[in-house]
């Protein structure tokens, strides 16, 4: 029988991490994601699977614990919300530079600075363009339901190890705090040390006489070697662009206009599509599920079909830049957003479509 539960997004991803065979979670409390740590603490996963859950002394300590665990080939996760994710950026750059897998959840809130505890999507640039230093990319997944919060924990670990690259789940306060029906996948066993060594020959679990030393580092002082390293990283990001683009379309078949929206805003836009169609406006919705790699090709394709595109985001206009790059300039592309923790309502999005795209 299906195991259906009513859970908050934050609780669902915590439960899913345990079930995905996570070895450890390191975090530090911050609204609106504190339920992740709270749920893990109350579930006592060390009794269920042996998984370690630790409240670190700071966000920075937590991300560096992820680095250590990942270097040993463990499935390790951390979570925070916007200001805390900013603190983690140095560690995230090091993970990417050292080609380490790790799962990072950002339940975003309004900013900049300490901002507000209400939902926002203003961390899009930070997540997709490299929030830390250096030429690196995270693979970024944007859940738009509580079910996806659960499913992406499992998928995130798989992709992180597939590419030896940190994966970010870019959620927000709305998906984190709302409750929906979730179907939980069954418990997956944690890998044993023997299995880890066999599966991931690069891990640093102690040198054995039959192999060379494994070195995990982002420090490569020889410029020629550092450049070769950068080419290897770039090749990986290109592979992601070829193999990992994920998106979802709603009512696009006969669409004359298009919304592009991710995460919680994509949910609101589904309602806006219904409202607009009642008024005779043929609008569809494209929801990028991966923000990097960005679904540029489908947007380029739809740009040949529709008369205009509105990128709807809870920010001042960030993803709209990637939409414009994908479209290439033939049709009107504009942005509508609310900031500072204000969630756009379904009807105001329809009004924005009328004013900015149809009438504009």
């Amino acid at each position, binding site marked *: 029988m299906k195991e*259906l*539960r*009513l859970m908050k997004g934050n609780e669902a991803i915590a439960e899913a991490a345990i079930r995905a065979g996570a070895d450890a979670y390191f975090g530090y409390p911050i*609204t*609106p994601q504190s339920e992740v740590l709270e749920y893990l603490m109350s579930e006592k996963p060390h009794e269920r699977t042996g998984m370690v859950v630790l409240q670190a002394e700071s966000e920075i300590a937590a991300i560096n614990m992820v680095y250590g665990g990942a270097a040993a080939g463990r499935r390790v996760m951390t979570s925070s919300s916007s200001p805390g994710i900013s603190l983690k950026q140095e560690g995230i750059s090091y993970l990417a530079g050292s080609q380490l897998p790790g799962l990072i959840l950002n339940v975003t809130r309004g900013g900049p600075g300490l901002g*507000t*505890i*209400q939902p926002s999507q203003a961390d899009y640039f930070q997540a997709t363009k490299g929030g830390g230093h250096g030429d690196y990319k995270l693979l970024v997944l944007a859940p738009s339901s509580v079910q996806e919060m659960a499913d992406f924990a499992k998928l995130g670990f798989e992709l992180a190890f597939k590419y030896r690259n940190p994966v970010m789940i870019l959620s927000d*306060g*709305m998906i984190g*705090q*709302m*409750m*929906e*029906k979730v179907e939980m996948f069954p418990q997956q066993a944690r890998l044993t040390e023997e299995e880890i060594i066999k599966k991931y020959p690069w891990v640093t679990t102690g040198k054995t006489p039959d192999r060379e030393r494994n070195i995990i580092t982002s420090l490569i002082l020889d410029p020629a070697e550092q450049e070769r390293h950068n080419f290897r990283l770039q090749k990986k990001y290109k592979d992601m662009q070829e193999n990992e683009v994920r998106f979802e379309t709603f009512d696009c078949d006969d669409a004359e206009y298009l919304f592009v929206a991710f995460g*919680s805003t994509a*949910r*609101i*836009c*589904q*309602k*806006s599509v*219904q409202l607009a169609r009642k008024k005779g406006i043929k609008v569809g919705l494209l929801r990028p599920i991966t923000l990097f790699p960005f679904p540029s090709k489908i947007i380029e394709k739809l740009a040949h079909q529709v008369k205009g595109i509105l990128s709807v985001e809870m920010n001042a206009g960030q993803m709209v830049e990637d939409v414009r790059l994908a479209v290439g300039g033939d049709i009107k592309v504009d942005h509508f957003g609310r900031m500072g*923790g204000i*969630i756009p*309502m*379904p*009807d*105001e999005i329809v009004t924005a479509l009328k004013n900015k795209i149809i009438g504009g």
Partner: protein
Amino acid sequence: MTEEIIIAGFGGQGVLSMGKILAYSGIMQDQEVSWMPSYGPEMRGGTANVTVIISDERVSSPILNEYDTAIILNQQSMDKFEGTIKPGGTLLYDPNGITRHPERKDINIYQVTAAEKAAEMGNTKIFNMVVLGAYLKIKPIVKMENVIKGLKKSLPDRYHHLIALNEEAITMGMNSVIE
């Protein structure tokens, strides 16, 4: 069937847990649900509200600008949400603490004196279940057996001895709707 509900009142009145029980009841009869709370500064002591959607289809937006039903439990929420009910929609409120009664003519308005009934039953904590009963009398969108299953799912085991009392409160609410 899609029912879009806002439940709004003071923090501590059981607004969020009432919404949770309703949502769980929907799951128990195989429907799609969403529960979106206000979790902002207002949760730290002022008003609290939750949007609950129960539907036969996948739920689109978990936040809304208009509702089929508003369940209103204080004056601030009356001021904020009376105007957001769809024409022909439903407004249920407890007159206790209401200084300005609803004025709209294009909606169906009901009262339940839930605070009074809960006090009569000797337990003010079951206030929200009296309100839930009144709502289910007006809109029987979930079956009573599924509400009980929902209660069992949302209450920790240590409170399961209170389910009978909750059921009584729901029945009390069902019998106390004033049109």
